[in-house]
């Protein structure tokens, strides 16, 4: 038992020394397909939406200050730049949700295809048209959601 604990500690330490590329590897866009773009966008939209969420919770707390405080907060956010920011939030949240649903299915083993013999040109069966079309659907839905956002925020009414 003691030896097992020591080995576990040693192996954890080794992993930490081997894996030092960190953010540089995470941001490297070269040599990868659409799955990498999706991986990257899922994380970037997630971090962006978390920042928006924290800002939104702080911003809406002005409601307890009364009508004057609420209206002065609205004056800051209800501007063309504020509306463009909201449209970005609509697009990123739609992509994050749609791509997130694809990832849940993928994690459950759905849409990965059958494992096959590794023949030339060695394209993995898991990175198939189902996965790619899921990414494209997420991007198209995000574009439509942003158009709807433009209509609501910049349209009449």
């Amino acid at each position: 038992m003691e030896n097992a604990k020591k080995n576990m500690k040693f192996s954890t330490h080794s992993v930490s020394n081997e894996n030092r590329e960190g953010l540089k590897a995470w941001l490297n866009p070269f040599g990868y397909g659409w799955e990498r773009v999706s991986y990257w966008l899922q994380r970037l939209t997630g971090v962006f939406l978390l920042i928006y969420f924290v800002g939104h919770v702080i911003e809406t707390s002005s409601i307890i200050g009364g009508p004057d405080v609420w209206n002065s907060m609205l004056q800051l956010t209800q501007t063309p730049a504020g509306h463009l920011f909201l449209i970005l939030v609509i697009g990123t949240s739609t992509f994050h949700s749609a791509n997130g649903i694809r990832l849940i299915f993928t994690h459950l083993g759905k849409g990965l295809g059958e494992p096959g013999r590794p023949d030339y040109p060695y394209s993995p069966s898991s990175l198939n048209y189902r996965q790619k079309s899921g990414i494209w659907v997420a991007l198209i839905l995000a574009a439509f959601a942003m158009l709807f956002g433009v209509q609501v925020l910049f349209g009449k009414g």
Partner: protein
Amino acid sequence: MKIHYVTGVCALFVVAIHIIMRLIMPFSASLTYNNVIGNYHNIFYALLLEIILVLIAVHGFNGLRIILLELRQNRTWEKYVSYGTIIASIAIIAFGTRTIIFANGLEL
């Protein structure tokens, strides 16, 4: 990842209701002080906001934890990242809950 998937899917539904509440009337009218405070005074809507707050805080900070643990792996880093994100989630939930309670008009 179970907690991440469950909070993500649940958040999708409750956030949809939250957005619909802003779209059942002209957007600018839905943001007037009287309309928003009226929303907060509705106990069911206040409860919905609390559920959204908890779900998104847990989902968001757990997602941040996953990203940070992908970047580097060792025991100390994992410990600080996990505790840091848990504390941040609790802080934002506490702050948002304070807004919901005061805006709802409940006296503690």
